[in-house]
């Protein structure tokens, strides 16, 4: 409870922005869904067969898992708020349509007979009698839809749509349950509040409800337009992948950029998404810079030629290859930092000292096979466990574990070896050792800022500022900084600032 309160105080600024984002996203989706589903529900009154068909379609749409729907939408509409809103609208259609349809359908036929006998026109019947009579049922549907939307909107974070999901994701990636809890609580609270608000609607006269809804729309619409239209100093958007390490790096970028050019405003988007999102966001101008790894470029983003692939397999530095491949895509990679964030074979430090082990090849000295806990992917990769077997001639008794469990398993002695990344904070936290890859099995993953070539040309001062990080930050530095953020709960921006100041990259009095 105490921890939650502290996290709340610490994060209240972010929480508020994310809350507003979340509310905006939800409201826009709800409104669109209302605009589609209510007229459809009205129209379906006199089209029974079509109504049945629509109920089925909206029902089917609702059974598509939300993640899958987002995934399907990305190739069509890209990432960001668009796919999030579309997905949310899709989910909200059924309850609103269904309730509008049944609410109107179940009005006592005597009222309909009376309307007709009094010579009321179709619109008069709808506005004066039928909609008001069906309103409680319709609002019930709107309520269900709103609660559904607010809950599902947390998934928008996965596609860069923002909202409270960002906080939840950050909590998961930083292994900070209180942060996750905070995001989840805020989302739940919002849902409850919204649901209450809508239930008040049925108590007010419907004209009042429409007025309130209208005011909300105008308010948010106006706010969004203002944001879009108002002139601003140049804003550079720097995004990062999931986790503490990219967040620390982009905070360093921010400090360095703002030191180099006081007229720009850096907007950070930490935990923006997976590699492919960031890459397409960069290409489509949604973000300007993000830290990328050389190894990732040559192994998953772009396809090296056969010759280049062979060179990489021999253990050559992939940086020049990555750069030339990226240049063809009109992208540029800045100078790489020192540390190599690659796979690592991790053991307990004390155990390693006892057995005189510092490198992977030392493991051959042990007679009985060790128990290893590997991530499923690592276990199957050529440059993972398979490579260890062929290149080092070492075999283990392997249990596959989820990556989130492996360090705990190692720490508790359930396994003696596990895979990891060379800069993981847990190495520092649990006093572990990443064994040296003396036969160069693992590919080299060096981090550097990635941006569009045009952007780099337009902002030479900024590229120079970022290149100051070239050759800086060792694996131990990174482990330490990750440890400070993930375990000690320091903010990424503070940790970044301390490092830059300590290494003379940032002037102190700022």
């Amino acid at each position: 409870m105490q921890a939650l309160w502290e996290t709340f105080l610490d994060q209240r600024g972010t929480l508020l922005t994310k809350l507003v984002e979340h509310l905006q996203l939800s409201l826009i989706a709800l409104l669109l869904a209302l605009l589609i589903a209510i007229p459809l529900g009205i129209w379906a009154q006199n089209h029974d067969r079509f109504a049945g068909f629509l109920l089925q379609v909206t029902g089917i749409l609702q059974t598509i898992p939300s993640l899958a729907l987002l995934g399907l939408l990305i190739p069509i509409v890209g990432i960001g708020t668009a796919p999030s809103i579309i997905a949310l609208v899709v989910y909200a259609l059924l309850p609103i349509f269904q309730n509008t349809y049944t609410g109107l359908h179940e009005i006592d036929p005597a009222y309909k007979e009376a309307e007709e006998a009094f010579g009321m026109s179709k619109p008069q019947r709808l506005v004066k009698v039928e909609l008001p009579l069906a309103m409680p049922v319709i609002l019930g549907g709107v309520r269900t839809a709103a609660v559904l939307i607010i809950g599902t909107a947390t998934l928008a974070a996965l596609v860069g749509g923002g909202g409270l999901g960002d906080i939840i994701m950050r909590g998961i990636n930083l292994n900070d349950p209180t942060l996750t809890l905070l995001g989840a609580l805020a989302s739940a609270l919002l849902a409850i509040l919204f649901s209450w608000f809508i239930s008040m609607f049925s108590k007010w006269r419907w004209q009042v409800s429409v007025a309130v809804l209208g005011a909300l729309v105008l308010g948010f619409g106006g706010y969004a337009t203002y944001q879009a239209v108002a002139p601003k100093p140049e804003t550079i958007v720097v995004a990062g992948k999931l986790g503490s390490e990219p967040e620390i790096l982009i905070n360093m970028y921010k400090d360095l950029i703002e030191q180099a050019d006081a007229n720009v405003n850096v907007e950070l988007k930490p935990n923006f998404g997976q590699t492919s999102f960031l890459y397409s966001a960069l290409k489509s101008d949604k973000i300007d810079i993000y830290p990328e790894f050389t190894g990732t470029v040559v192994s998953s983003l772009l396809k090296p030629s056969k010759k280049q692939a062979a060179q990489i397999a021999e253990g050559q530095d992939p940086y020049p290859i990555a750069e030339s491949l990226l240049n063809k895509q009109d992208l540029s990679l800045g100078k790489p930092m020192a540390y190599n964030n690659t796979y690592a074979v991790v053991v307990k430090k004390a155990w390693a000292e006892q057995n005189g082990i510092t490198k992977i090849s030392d493991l051959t000295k042990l007679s009985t096979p060790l128990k290893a806990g590997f991530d499923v992917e690592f276990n199957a990769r050529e440059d993972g466990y398979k490579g260890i077997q062929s290149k080092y001639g070492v075999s283990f008794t392997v249990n596959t574990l989820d990556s989130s469990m492996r360090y705990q398993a190692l720490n508790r002695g359930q396994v003696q070896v596990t895979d990891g990344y060379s800069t993981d904070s847990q190495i520092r936290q649990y006093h572990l050792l990443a064994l040296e890859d003396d036969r160069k099995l693992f590919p080299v993953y060096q981090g550097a800022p990635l941006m569009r070539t045009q952007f780099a040309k337009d902002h030479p001062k900024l590229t120079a500022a970022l290149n100051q990080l070239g050759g800086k930050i060792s694996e131990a530095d990174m482990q330490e900084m990750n440890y400070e953020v993930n375990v000690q709960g320091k903010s990424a921006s503070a940790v970044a600032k301390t490092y830059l100041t300590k290494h003379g990259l940032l002037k102190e009095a700022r």
Partner: protein
Amino acid sequence: MTKDVLRFEHVVKQFEGTTAVKDLNLTIGDGELFVLVGASGSGKTTTLKMINRLIEPTDGNIYFNDKRLIDTNLRDLRWNIGYVLQQIALFPNMTVAQNIALIPQMKHWSKEQIRETVDEMLTAVDLEPKQYRDRMPAELSGGEQQRVGICRALATKPPMVLMDEPFSALDPISRTSLQDMVLRLHKKMKTTIVFVTHDMNEAMRLGDRIAVMREGVLQQVATPEEIAANPASNFVSDFFASAAPEVLDTPLIELRRFADRSTEAGEAQEGDPLRAILTPLGEGKSVTVACQQGNFKVNATQVMAFLADVAKD
């Protein structure tokens, strides 16, 4: 008789499977209170709804003021023909005043005129305007609701009003007073009223002329006196006989004012006929009757007092 306002010529209405109305020929005079009576399913509602074209005839023609109904503008027709439903159907989202003002508003009357009409109508049906104007329908008793229903139909003083079993869902006491009210309003406003009922008593009480229907066929159209004197068929005479008030069929609620209040559970219902409790009364027991306005307990002496009262008039 004055001129005819409504004329049915060889009107037939078929639904899938049934013929609800068979070759109907009928004229209704201006200002008449015309009652259509018949058992359930005899085609009364179908006939009535063909007048305001809620139902279109399969064959034949209906003339309103010598103009074929199908040649009249539907909206004008409906604004000229008031409609009172058995289910009352006051719009529950509107106040009493808003319900009454519905058609005047569609006709773009001034606010002033609407307000005056609402109050005038409420007064005409014995509801104090100040007290009732802003109430919601759900806050009214069934009898009060139907009074408002009649106000709604009469607000624009249409030349004709249709009423489809408007009182059959009401308790006997409200029914009697609403019947009186309809007679009074009809006398005052001289509107043509077509009134549908299955209750021959009600028909005899209200009708200037009565049309008896049976299975879609008109049996007799005549004044109540003529029907009493010369029933056209056995069916009509039987139906008429059912109207002769049988004292033993009196609903128990009529005995209430002679009885004592009671908090005990009812052994009989307020709508049960007097004959249903003869046995216990004969044995000298008293009977508790369940009643919405409060249960009451009646004994043989009190029943005798009631009978004496009936015999008086």
